[in-house]
């Protein structure tokens, strides 16, 4: 797990731009046997960025502040403060060599703002966990810090969220960069301070963004998949593709590759959908002989007089309303 918090706070998802940015802070979770190698890669990429590493064994990592996990919230906050303070003094040293400019002053303000936000959200989540006696997932920190009884329990990826009960979720209005163990990168954008999301919609968006075209390991691109339950599409930010693909996967078993071809969508779009639906246990691999399901565009529909042209016109009309454009 690695979380890279971009310097500039944004309100729109901007993958390519954001990937070029230097982060202000790295929160790195040293998972598995290749944790050290991944850390070296990160350090090489961002040599001057302050970093806090959460490790199970507490083993030292060069150039990072190591925190054994699960970490107490106050310990993590203190570590973040120390890491960022070091970074600020580093910048001040730079200013002494080259007299301050408006841009540098702005960076310091943003740095302070970032620290306040990070610590503020952690404190709020801790208070929420204490008051409700329930687990809290903190979004805005990358692959999701999980608080239980005052302790920050590692971070969790979308795959393990399926079995996790998440009654309350705090969100924060800054973007984070997520790099998971499969080296899939994504930028999550969460709007609205302290807004509470529905669990399913939240997990859907998270899985969709983390996929970026990668499929879960269990699903081969040519495996026939069938929809077991529709996602709650009214709660999704972009329901059009989700509705279209749900309708397709509901009618008959079909693979990712065939679905992309049949729908004229990119395989990336279909993979994102399948990853999100699989993460929520809404879609599964069809092992049985396909049952005789009612197919789309049946004879009865044609008897009712639907023509593709009228249907297309109506769909465009409806879609424009969903997207908030003038019909």
């Amino acid at each position, binding site marked *: 797990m690695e979380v890279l918090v971009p310097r500039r706070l944004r309100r729109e998802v901007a993958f390519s731009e954001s990937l070029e940015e230097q982060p202000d802070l790295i929160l790195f979770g040293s998972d598995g046997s290749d944790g050290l190698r991944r850390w070296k890669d990160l350090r090489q990429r961002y040599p001057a960025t302050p970093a806090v590493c959460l490790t199970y064994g507490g083993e030292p990592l060069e150039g990072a502040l190591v925190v054994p996990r699960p970490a107490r919230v106050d310990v993590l906050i203190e570590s973040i403060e120390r890491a960022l303070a070091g970074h600020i003094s580093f910048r001040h040293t730079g200013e002494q060599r080259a007299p301050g400019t408006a841009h540098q002053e702005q960076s310091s303000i943003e740095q302070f703002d970032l620290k306040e936000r990070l610590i503020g959200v952690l404190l709020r989540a801790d208070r929420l966990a204490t008051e409700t006696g329930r687990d809290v997932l903190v979004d805005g920190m990358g692959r999701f810090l999980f608080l239980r009884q005052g302790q920050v329990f590692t971070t969790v990826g979308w795959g393990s969220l399926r079995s996790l009960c998440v009654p309350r979720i705090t969100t924060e209005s800054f973007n984070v960069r997520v790099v998971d163990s499969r080296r899939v990168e994504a930028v999550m954008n969460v709007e609205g301070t302290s807004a509470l999301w529905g669990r399913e919609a939240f997990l859907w968006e998270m899985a969709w963004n983390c996929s970026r075209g990668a499929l879960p390991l269990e699903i081969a691109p040519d495996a026939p998949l069938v929809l077991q339950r529709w996602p709650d599409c*009214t709660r999704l930010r972009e329901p059009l593709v989700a509705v279209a693909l*749900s*309708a*397709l996967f509901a009618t008959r078993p079909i693979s990712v590759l065939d679905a992309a071809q049949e*729908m004229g969508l990119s395989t990336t779009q279909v993979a994102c959908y399948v990853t999100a639906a699989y993460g929520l246990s809404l879609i599964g691999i069809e092992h049985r002989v396909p049952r005789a399901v009612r197919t789309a565009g049946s004879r009865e529909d044609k008897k009712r007089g639907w023509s593709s042209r*009228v249907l297309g016109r109506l769909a465009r009309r*409806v879609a424009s309303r969903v*997207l908030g454009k003038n019909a």
Partner: protein
Amino acid sequence: MNTQQNYKIIISGPVGAGKTTAIAALSDIVPVRTDARPTDEVAAAKNATTVALDYGTIELGAEAKVHLYGTPGQDRFDFMWDIMTDGALGLILLMNNAQPDPLADLRQFLSAFSDFLQTAPFCVGVTHMDVKSTPTLEDYHKAMSRQVRDRVVPVFSVDGRSRRDVNVLLMAMLGMIEPRILADVANSQAA
């Protein structure tokens, strides 16, 4: 000679599910309503209720028009349901989650429309989930799977006042007729 093609979509569900409001959210015209002051047990919940039908339209240029019909919710009007569904393209069922037993309501409506639903696309919108969060959408799916065995039906949480929510519901119904149409729209919006 008028060559405009006419289609109809039915919106049904129990009293207070938001059918009238949903038609207002979908319609291009000010909906025609047949509200009256209720004299039965509905009077406790509403000042006015639909006694004949609600009506709205979606205009698709000179070529076609979609007529939206909302059924009255009381089951004593169920004789109208068969008449209204004759030749309809599909059905949107709105369920009021704040009712004492919404799953029983669902079963009743699925039975009442069973002939029509054997061949027609339909979807379910659950309203008032902010008032009462149970039964959950999963409960609706389970309840429905006992009566509708051969397909996976869309069930969404819906705010009947939200134009977006109601249109997503309608979109799902269109998607069940021809999913590719929606993909084409998604692609054209992205372009």
